[in-house]
């Protein structure tokens, strides 16, 4: 089984549109499993029209609560909290749930046993069926912690499934950035496909995501999306790829058909047979 993760560093470069198309193209000749590893803003389901079969709660950790009846107002909890999560309003202590990382330092230090640690259900994860293969995806509840942990749970379940079903490919739609959810999305991948747009930000962020995949020793290939927005920057990226011996597997021009396909809730390769779909078909044959 070959695991391919689509990343970009910068958000909005076209990761999800490309991942959906690769899934559609791959499924024509092989069996695949899909994972949406962007649990903050999971969009893959919007173009794959999945039927949800299984739903699970995700308990990401715990949060601290102050029992006002037991609290003696000694201020210990506020002093030990390194996340500025303990608030005092008119002498009443409480924990700001959005700041609490669940470390329990206050729980252990409170001399009056006035702090309780409670489980936090911080998201849901799903197994769904799409026209192209089984999809594992999730929703992290608004403002919750532990998106990296939820990504790991989703991926772990997808891996077990792929072994059971003997799928040939696992296609992972990654989150933006380079932090914990990206590291979790990368784990175990044989190839990272980096989607970059020819802009100063895109190039800057490509450098950082590439340093991240290198750090975890994952081979990478590059796709330049909206390559015609700035021909000189596209050449700059091509030269950078040549210099670093990175395969440049696609140059995709800007085309409103990509948004049209999104509005039609389809991968662009399923929606159209135009130049974008042909270029993506070549990308897949280079990656497969």
């Amino acid at each position, binding site marked *: 089984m070959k695991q391919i993760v689509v990343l970009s560093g*910068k958000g909005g470069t076209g990761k999800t549109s490309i991942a959906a198309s690769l899934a559609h193209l791959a499924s024509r000749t092989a069996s695949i499993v899909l994972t949406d590893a962007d649990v903050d*803003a999971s969009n893959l389901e919007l173009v794959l029209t999945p039927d949800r079969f299984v739903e699970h709660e995700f308990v990401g950790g715990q949060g601290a609560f102050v029992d006002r009846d037991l609290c003696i107002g000694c201020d210990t909890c506020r002093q030990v909290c390194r996340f500025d999560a303990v608030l005092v309003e008119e002498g009443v202590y409480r924990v700001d749930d959005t700041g609490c990382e669940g470390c*329990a330092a206050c729980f252990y230090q409170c001399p009056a046993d006035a702090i309780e640690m409670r489980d936090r259900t911080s998201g849901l994860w799903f197994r769904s069926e799409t026209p192209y293969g089984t999809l594992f995806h999730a929703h992290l509840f608004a403002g919750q912690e532990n998106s990296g942990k939820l990504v790991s749970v989703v991926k772990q379940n997808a891996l077990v499934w792929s072994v059971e079903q003997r799928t040939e490919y696992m296609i992972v739609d990654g989150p*933006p*950035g380079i932090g914990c959810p990206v590291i979790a999305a990368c784990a175990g991948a044989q190839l990272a496909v980096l989607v970059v747009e020819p802009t100063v930000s895109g190039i800057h962020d490509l450098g*950082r995501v590439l340093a991240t995949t290198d750090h975890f020793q994952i081979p990478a290939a590059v796709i330049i999306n909206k390559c015609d927005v700035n021909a000189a*920057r596209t050449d700059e990226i091509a030269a950078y790829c040549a210099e670093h011996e990175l395969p440049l597997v696609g140059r995709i021009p800007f085309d409103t058909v990509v948004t049209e396909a*999104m509005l039609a809730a389809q991968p662009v390769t399923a929606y159209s047979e135009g130049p974008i779909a042909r270029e993506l078909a070549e990308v897949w044959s280079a990656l497969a």
Partner: protein
Amino acid sequence: MIITVASGKGGTGKTTVATNLALSLLGAGDGTHRGSRLVFADCDVEEPNAALFLRPLLSEKEAVSLLIPAVDTESCTYCGRCAEVCQFHAIAVVGQKVLVFDELCHGCGSCALECPENAIEESPQAIGHVEQGRVGSMVFCHGEMNIGVPMATPIIRQVKHIALEHCAEDTVILDAPPGTSCPVVETLRGSDYALMVTEPTPFGLHDLALAIEVARDVLGIPVGVVINREGVGDDSIDAYCREHQIPILMRIPLDRRIAEAYSDGIPIVSALPEYQERFVALYDQIMEECAR
């Protein structure tokens, strides 16, 4: 006054709106806006891009560290209390050995506080850095997380610490990272207004709704919307904002000139100076919304 520019979905134009808003106020008011000092902070420490457009003169750099436990093997009795209290499984006691997994440690200090032998000392380990300087008379700061480090929030906290020093009198613009989880919450906490930049596509709408849930419903911050690349998709954002009574404060059309200027790191207000007035008007509208 703290305005955070956020979005949920990446690549919708957060940095474009934040930097052009700042430059417009800077240009209109000679570095102060109606008497208040301007401060800009890029809180996307995983992929900081605002400096590419604002080109600040940076004068100070400071490492951001996490306090990681180090166990003194002389006084340790291997009782296992540190491993028991660590909620992140960052410390394990195996026989006569204590293992610390740096990348899992949140730097909370609980193990050091709980150790009955006082055998744990914490030492700072760099996870990134923050820099500050000026763009004209505007204060600028940003942070950068080291490669392979999972946790962005301590660096965001440090960037905000610099930016919010005089926030009661200043006008502070925070450029948020994408998403809806901890880095975004850390950026939004304490803001007076959340300006959500979106694009009129199904992805844009889906992620806008999630970001508004975080800002307005979880954190209680008033929100307004900027529609970027108007014309690219449909009018579902308009319908959503109408239904949820969220004001649309600005519309930026899909315009190749803007995309080309952006691709070379040129702010809209430099390429198309007529936008300066529009961004100042956006600021005035935010003020009106906050006064409600």
